[in-house]
């Protein structure tokens, strides 16, 4: 018995040691807690596997929203529409942290920016941003006026063949000096937005001022009018966005022959690969076909881009591009028809 007894000193030391150990453990836990990764975990997966998880996020105006992004399968990308945070890649096996700040309430859409599969363009989620003070108030500005195509009564889903088409590709440069003889309204933004090039051509054919022009010269004149409405400084932005978001379907040269188009169904549309909702899928439009493109007004094209095809396979871009960006895209689409000489702007 005696031999088994521990001296009181040693016992105290042992207790102290144990206490110190416990304190150290608590400290470590506290440190781990403080250094824990902050932010909402958002997982990315191919749309067939569920897309974004969660697909609905909430945030407050002026309060940073921290996200930790990770992919479950392939490389995806993350960007928020109508927001200027740069897109980031989301890779499997590595957390990507980003912080978003919103200064306007509203419903934002985030979307995948890497072409991860055939249904890539369906990979979207929403962020509901409420104003800091009153939760629930969605603070959205007064109802926006209806889009131009609705005001003009254009059916953006109907075929719009051009009544007249040029022999070759109209060049804008021939016309630089001639535009001045025309009634002013042809040169207005309103005219441009609401008329297709072939409508403009037909109207101009009736103009006394244009009587002396050949058909080809008249097309050059139309190209000149269209060029005058094209903001050259926005074309580069539009080209990049087009290549990134549209070329896979519509083709880099606008011919409707993008790599994804090959896999999309013809007309009737029972594309096997678009399994998620394969009805009514169509071939992507060709912007290089004058018969269709010259029959389309900017209002029609912008309307289609914003609203999408509603089941045709054409995504809707309204929550992603603002009006100005959509118009830049529309202006860019006409470059598949017209040769602009971009130095010679309308005098």
């Amino acid at each position: 018995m005696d031999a088994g007894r521990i001296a009181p000193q040693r016992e105290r030391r042992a207790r102290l040691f144990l206490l110190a150990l416990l304190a150290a453990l608590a400290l470590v836990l506290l440190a781990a807690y403080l250094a824990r990764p902050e932010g909402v975990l958002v997982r990315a997966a191919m749309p067939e596997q569920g897309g974004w998880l969660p697909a609905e996020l909430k945030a407050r105006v002026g309060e940073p929203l921290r996200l930790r992004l990770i992919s479950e399968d392939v490389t995806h990308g993350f960007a928020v529409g109508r927001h200027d945070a740069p897109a980031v890649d989301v890779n499997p096996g590595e957390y990507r942290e980003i912080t978003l700040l919103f200064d306007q309430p509203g419903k934002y859409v985030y979307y995948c920016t890497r072409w991860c599969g055939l249904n890539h363009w369906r990979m979207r989620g929403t962020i509901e941003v409420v104003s800091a003070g009153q939760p629930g108030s969605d603070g959205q500005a007064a109802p926006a006026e209806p889009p131009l195509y609705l005001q003009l009564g254009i059916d953006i889903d109907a075929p719009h063949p051009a009544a007249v088409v040029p022999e070759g590709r109209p060049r804008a440069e021939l016309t630089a000096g001639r535009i001045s003889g025309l009634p002013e309204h042809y040169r207005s933004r309103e005219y441009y937005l609401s008329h297709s090039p072939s409508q403009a051509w037909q109207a101009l054919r009736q103009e006394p001022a244009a009587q002396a022009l050949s058909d080809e010269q008249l097309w050059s004149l139309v190209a000149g009018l269209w060029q005058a409405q094209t903001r050259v400084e926005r074309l580069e932005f539009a080209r990049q966005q087009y290549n990134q978001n549209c070329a896979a379907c519509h083709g880099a040269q606008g011919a409707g022959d993008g790599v994804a188009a090959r896999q999309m169904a013809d007309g009737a549309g029972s594309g096997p690969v678009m399994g998620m909702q394969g009805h009514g899928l169509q071939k992507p439009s060709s912007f290089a076909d004058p018969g269709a493109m010259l029959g389309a007004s900017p209002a029609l094209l912008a309307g289609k881009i914003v609203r999408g095809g509603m089941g045709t396979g054409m995504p809707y871009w309204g929550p992603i591009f603002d009006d100005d960006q959509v118009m830049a895209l529309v202006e860019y689409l006409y470059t598949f028809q017209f040769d602009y000489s971009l130095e010679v702007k309308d005098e």
Partner: protein
Amino acid sequence: MTKTSLHAVLPWLVLALLAALVLLLPLPVAAAAPRARRFRIEASQFAYSPAVLRVNPGDQVTIELAPQDVVHGLSIDSYPVDLQADPGQVASLTFTADRPGVFKLRCSVTCGNMHPFMTGKLQVGPPTLLWRSLGLALVALAAALLPRFK
């Protein structure tokens, strides 16, 4: 006595010399003048086409990566090449093939379940390693047969 031993050793010496020659001798291949080469590589799950690029040392090599289905990448071992592109886009880059040898092409974007097997190769210069090993094999064969002719 010395004579016979020399007689026995001589063939081995010759063979050893031959092996050394096979390993070290510069190959009698006319070095082609460097030129510019352009490859358009179409990438789709999970292969490159073409998957083998043959160039000569010193060539200016331009690679255009054109994905055909999903986003792909292309990097080359030991060369500062790393391209990425979404389908519909073409990413390109030019480099000088200044290291001879065979290098692996790899997809640098996780593009699907077979992604790790999405590879190809860049061969700079003739496949000297192959020829040298063939030569060595011949020498080894001779060495193996030598005792029979004694």
